[in-house]
């Protein structure tokens, strides 16, 4: 049974892009497109979710994702409550469901969930009453579907189509929920060549089975790319045995103007943020003419509005 869709195939929860039908992804992107102008109006709001209560349930810290969900909900006229719940070592499954039950008793209509454990949003979605929708805002290494969707929206805005693109995802794919969501969306949307580039220690074994080509060398991997997606290298990876040092990593896998020149001249550079300048990306590239990193943030609001509007429309059917 697919928890994400209703019996008649409409969006019920958004938990992962793995298996989400192409038609639903396209509907989200098209709906987001029509929300794009709301931010430029005199009144930056539409009344769609008036009277709805949306709870941002963040068990793991986040600034950008939480803020853009909050802005998106407010532009839809929903009431937003932000809860940053520090995860202590005692936090167990039951405690999460207690929290959810209490918030449901306050008449929540939607939960936006971020958690360090893979499957947390899924777990909550299985538990909530039928009128409540759950959006996964990042769970462990598993998925970050709205980030994947806003990346697809960004690619479509700059490249128009998906069927003729070569897209490279560079860096720590192993620990990246963003990369997983991107790979699922890119393959569903028919991108003919999706590449992952990184050291062997940061690529999951068997990643080829997701329909990607594997490269361990930037020179080969970036050649002919239309889109270059850089992933954040988390500092704690350096402390383990996976990498020698930030300088060493930057030398081989950091995106510099010289390496970017190997991609197509009109290639765009993306990054889900927050960036480590001088580790995975050089400032000249991050701030350069091919970077679309700040537009990604703006588009994230329209995409999250689209997801919440579609869910709210389904939840009360």
């Amino acid at each position, binding site marked *: 049974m697919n928890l994400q869709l209703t019996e008649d195939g*409409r969006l019920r929860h958004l938990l992962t892009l793995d298996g989400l039908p192409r038609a639903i992804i396209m*509907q989200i992107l*098209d*709906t987001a*497109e*029509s*929300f*794009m*102008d*709301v931010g430029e*109006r*005199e*009144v930056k*709001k*539409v*009344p*769609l979710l008036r009277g709805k209560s949306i709870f941002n349930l963040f068990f793991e810290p986040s600034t950008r994702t939480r803020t853009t969900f909050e802005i998106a909900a407010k532009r839809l006229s929903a009431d937003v409550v932000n809860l940053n719940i520090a995860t202590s070592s005692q936090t167990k499954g039951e405690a999460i469901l207690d929290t959810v039950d209490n918030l449901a008793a306050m008449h929540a209509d939607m939960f936006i969930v971020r958690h360090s454990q893979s499957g947390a949003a899924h777990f909550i979605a299985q538990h909530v009453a039928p009128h409540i929708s759950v959006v996964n805002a990042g769970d462990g290494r598993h998925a970050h579907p709205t980030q994947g969707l806003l990346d697809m929206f960004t690619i479509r805005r700059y490249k128009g189509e998906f069927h003729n693109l070569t897209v490279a995802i560079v860096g720590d794919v192993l620990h990246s929920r963003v990369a997983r969501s991107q790979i699922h969306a890119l393959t569903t949307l028919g991108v003919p060549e999706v590449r992952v580039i990184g050291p062997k220690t940061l690529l999951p074994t068997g990643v080829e089975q997701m329909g990607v080509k594997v490269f361990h060398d930037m020179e080969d991997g970036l050649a002919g790319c239309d889109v270059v997606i850089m992933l954040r290298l988390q500092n704690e990876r350096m402390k383990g045995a996976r990498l020698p040092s930030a300088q060493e990593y930057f030398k081989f896998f950091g995106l510099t103007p010289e390496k970017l020149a190997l991609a197509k001249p009109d290639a765009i550079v993306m990054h889900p943020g927050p960036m480590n300048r001088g580790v995975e990306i050089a400032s000249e590239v991050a701030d350069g003419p091919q970077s679309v990193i700040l537009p990604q943030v703006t588009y994230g609001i329209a995409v999250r509005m689209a997801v919440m*509007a*579609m869910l*709210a*429309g*389904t939840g*009360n*059917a």
Partner: protein
Amino acid sequence: MHASLPDANTLIARLADAIAPTLTPDTLIVGIHTGGVWVAERLHGLLQCAQPLGTLDISFYRDDFSRIGLHPQVKPSNLPFDLEGRAILLVDDVLHTGRTVRAAMNELFDYGRPASIRLAVLVDRGGHELPIRPDFAGLTITVPDHQNINLSRLDDGHLTLTLA
């Protein structure tokens, strides 16, 4: 029943004749998706309006959203002008309950505060549920609730009214 409805193009011409004497040069014509835009395009041409044509998709303002959800094909609203202090001629194909017009007015006010809004419809079919009446109507008839009047556009651009 089909044959009893007048030709849409004749009605649009009639509508344009009624509007023409009242049209100020600064009036902005705004059509409501989808049928209202077709009628607004024709009126915009017939009235030789010098201002750009505006279009509204009221999907984000519908009062039945929580019952029927989001329309799968929302078209962007396009108001290529500042409507603060301007005279607006709002155009739709069929006036029925008045809820679409209410939603359209709510949306217009989120872009600014117009000086005035007047309503032109191709057909006023009765069945109003709100205190909204057209300033101009090409045709005023009474149609039973279970029937619908639809405006459709053929590939050659020809507009047709049907009763079903």
